[in-house]
């Protein structure tokens, strides 16, 4: 939802004026059989590409998910090439492949993922969309809207190419650590934030450019300055298929729950989609997604 990121700001402030409270609770949940999870987000960056296979686990089981070992994982393309992902012996459930020579992933290429487990064969398809270069990363001094304290924020600058239908996941790293909190998911459709209202062929809109920042809070639940002197930001733009954009939008809706008054704007819990299909339609289901990205990147250190 377009407004969510704005409304939660408002709502944090509104809630301080009311009488709301939150309690962590421990409800009993229905138990369910595990389902195959395919985590297949590969890209054209140099080095090993990894696809992981795991099982779903009970919601409150806060442990490393159980790995699916011994599967056959491969990706083929529209030029008849086939890339076999080999299970890493030290990391169960991690299947890896490294590009070499002519065996690379190309912008514009179509790709098919095949996963064969002991009883099922799953398939998914994707294509590699184009990605614009990042012009620059800048830092801006501002103040915390709630406390008035000075803060420093990073912003990246890039322009969406003309032509609708481009989609991106902007992934950022602060001092080498990937920023992957649900509230930090930063996706763009063309230069805007949603499919519904086309914003094409211009500089990414301000909410996208600025959403690369870390969202961390102190003990009083106040937002910390995203950047301190000496911090460095690294930003990658990953191209997405339209389906992958929709998927990540759903992931953002389902996982980004800042609580408080933002709950008034929250939608009911629902399963996110998947593009992993069992060739046997009566067979076991799988969840997860397969997407092949082209990547552009830039980085910069903040020095006062």
């Amino acid at each position, binding site marked *: *939802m377009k407004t969510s990121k704005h409304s939660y*700001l*408002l709502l944090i*402030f509104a809630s301080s*004026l*009311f*009488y*709301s*409270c*939150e*309690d*962590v*609770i421990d409800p009993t*949940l229905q138990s*369910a059989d595990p*389902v195959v*999870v395919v*985590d297949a987000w590969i890209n054209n960056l140099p080095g090993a590409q990894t696809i992981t296979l*795991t099982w*779903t*686990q009970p*919601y409150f089981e806060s442990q*490393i998910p159980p790995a699916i070992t011994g599967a056959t994982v491969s990706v083929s393309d529209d030029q008849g090439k086939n890339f076999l992902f080999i299970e890493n012996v030290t990391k169960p459930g991690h299947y890896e492949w490294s590009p070499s020579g002519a065996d690379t992933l190309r912008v514009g290429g179509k790709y098919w993922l095949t996963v064969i487990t002991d009883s099922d064969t799953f398939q998914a398809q994707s294509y590699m969309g184009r990605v614009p270069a990042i012009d620059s990363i800048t830092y801006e001094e501002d103040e915390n809207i*709630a406390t*008035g304290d000075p803060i420093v924020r990073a912003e990246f600058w890039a322009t969406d190419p003309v032509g609708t239908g481009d989609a991106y996941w902007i992934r950022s790293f602060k001092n080498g650590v*990937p920023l*992957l*909190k*649900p509230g930090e998911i930063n996706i763009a459709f063309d230069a*805007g934030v949603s*499919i*519904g*209202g*086309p*914003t094409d062929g*211009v500089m*990414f*809109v301000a*909410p996208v450019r600025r959403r690369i920042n870390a969202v*961390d809070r102190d003990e009083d639940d106040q937002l910390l300055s995203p950047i301190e002197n000496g911090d460095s930001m690294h930003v990658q733009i990953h191209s997405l298929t339209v389906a992958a954009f929709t998927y990540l*939008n*759903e*992931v953002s*809706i*389902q*996982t980004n*729950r800042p*609580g408080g*008054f933002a*709950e*008034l*704007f*929250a*939608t*009911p*819990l*629902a399963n996110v*989609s998947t593009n992993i299909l069992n060739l046997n339609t009566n067979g076991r289901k799988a*969840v*997860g997604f397969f997407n092949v990205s082209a990547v552009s990147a830039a980085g910069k250190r903040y020095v006062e």
Partner: protein
Amino acid sequence: MSHFRLFVLVFFVIGLTCPAWAQEKFTINGTIKDNSNGEALIGVTVYVREISNGTTTNEYGFYSITLPKGTYTVDYSYVGFQTVSRTVVLDKNVQQPIELVPEASQLQEVVVKGEIEQANVENLEMSTNKLEIKTILRTPMLFGEADLLRSLQLLPGVSTVGEGASGFNVRGGNVGQNLILLDEAPVYNSSHLFGFFSVFNPDAVKDTKLYKGAIPSRYGGRLASILDVRMKEGNSKKFEVTGGIGTVFSRLAVEGPIVKDKASFIIAARRSYIDVLARPFVPILENGGALNFYDLTLKTNYDINRRNKIYLSGYFGRDVFRFDKTQGFNWGNATATLRWNHLFNERLFLNVTGVYADYDYALQFGKDERDRFSWNSSITSYIFRPQFTYFIDSRNELTFGADATYYSFIPANAEGVTNGDVVEISLGRKYNLETSVYAGNAQKISEKLSIEYGLRYSYFQYLGPGTEYIYGDTIPGLRKPVIGSKTYGSGEVIAQYGNFEPRFSFRVQAGQRASIKGSYNRMAQYLHLISNTTASNPLDVWNPTSNNIKPQLADQFTLGYFRDLTEDKKYEFSAEAYYRTTQNQIDYIDGADLLINQYLEGDLLSGIGRAYGLELYVQKKTGRLNGWVSYTLGRSELKVDGINGGQWYETRFNQLHNLKLAAFYDLTSRWQVSANFIFTSGTPTTFPTSRFTQQGILIPYNAFESRNNVHMPDYHRLDISFRLEGKKVKKNGKERKNSDYWVFSLYNVYARRNPFSIYFSQTDQRTPAGQAITSQATQLSIIGTIVPSVSYNFKF
């Protein structure tokens, strides 16, 4: 238009079956007013002893009764007023305007009026509740502020999903299925501050009536209920100022005569000031932030002569939320109603109403001109509504008329500026015309049997200029692809629908003190509130029926038993069962994009619904201790292809048990105490079964793909308020001209943390790569503590 012709035919058949005119008959009529302030009184019983029958005054205080030549004794009675009896020699038409004098002890009369003299038992109406403003003023409320919609929630069949939810639910219908009328103008969003307060200023409200079933043919357009709020006309005898200073806002109303007994006005205003008070402590407010609402209610009327009267009323209200000087959002309603009452002859009463009603919201983000985003959305309607009442004789009252509403929608008028480049992302406007004709007759067949029957034909057109989108089929639950579109010119019809809406109800007297009533009604709804959030909120958009969205239809059956428990009619009991089926109900695909989406209709799903229940109600109407107990056992479900595996699922606002208790007690002549207690079953929600990760993000998963598969903990709450009347006499023994009172209230007395929602998320800390992410469930209570408040109210 064969539908229309059939309707005209039916119309005439009803007309022809009306009793003959042969016998020499004369009419008594007039307007009944409150002697203290000149306000017309709605629903006054006019009882003719000789025929053991009578009528009641209409929304304008007018009554008319036609009888054979003779001498009659007529009693005029109304709760809280002294009964007046008049002997009338009826050898010609007689005009009999009456001014009723309030009873001295009127403060003790706290009633939700089931028409005390003409009690529920004797009335043809069922499934309706009248809410007296006096009751509203004495009900303990959040922040001590009397509120119409929150008082309404104490009645049987009315519920809400909790604090923070805009609107209310009636008999398992959603918030958008209630038609809320303020002096006949539709109010598209009835809430201030996310539902904590309603848009109705109690200082300016005269009468409130909620129709939950047995809806007369003159009303239409929504499936679940009609809430008809009528404003005061203003004191036509003397100037009066009422007001109050409370914890959250202050109110002031001025009313008085313009020409004594001929013309009067009322102007009432409210403004919240929580942000002003908090400004020194909250930096965001110091920097231009705001959090407030205000509203203004106006009305004036002019009695041209006995046959003609005009009324002009208006409302303007706004909620404002700003993070700083330039960023934030605001929303509000504006309405204007012009009415003309005309008496053609002694028996034919006409009211013509013209209405302008608008709801809009606007958002603006971005601190500078190079990067900003602004967006507004609105629904504007223009209504023309002539309505005739023909008081045929003492047994028949025929109402007929027509409605025409022209809608203009701005789904989104949005502009983004990124790095100085302007991007237009507005959606095309939508135009619609909704027309209806109706006729209904209330007929007393015998002393034991009364019936009311009517028919409404509604017709809806989606007009150009506009674009029709055609969507392809897909697996239910997924976004439908656009496979074509067609552009229409101005005035061309893009889509149209017509519906007959029959209405029928009956009352059978069962012994001296009891009656049985039943009804059937069909309702059609052409506007749809698009909302997939936990609770309705101000950004929800109304969307008209189109080639893709079909009109919603409902069929409701009710059956009720009404009984006076004691001879003196102090105690009244009612039991009502209802069953309603609905068609073309809207739900949403997972991940639906509802805001600024040209292809919104591709994200909507359609299904059927059913709601049924039993409402029990006991009321003690008079005495030092009075009040009521209301219990509703209900169920509300939907069945939509693509949700919950295509199986029935409970709606978000389904409540199995809903118990409400309201009590009012006079401690002394100056101290009064009021209490209410509410218990409702926890509303349904969806819990996950499992979890998985994608690229380091934890995602909840429900392996059964079910919707609303569990219930939240039960909701219960006790509120108490004390009211201290100011002294009636001065120290020197003289009577005070002014009156005032204090209200001290405690909301949520035992500080229960009632759940608004339970949500599932990963914990906020950053999880290092290769480590397990921690998941948790959080229960949010919007009001999690006791909320004390005090307010001072005055009148002079």
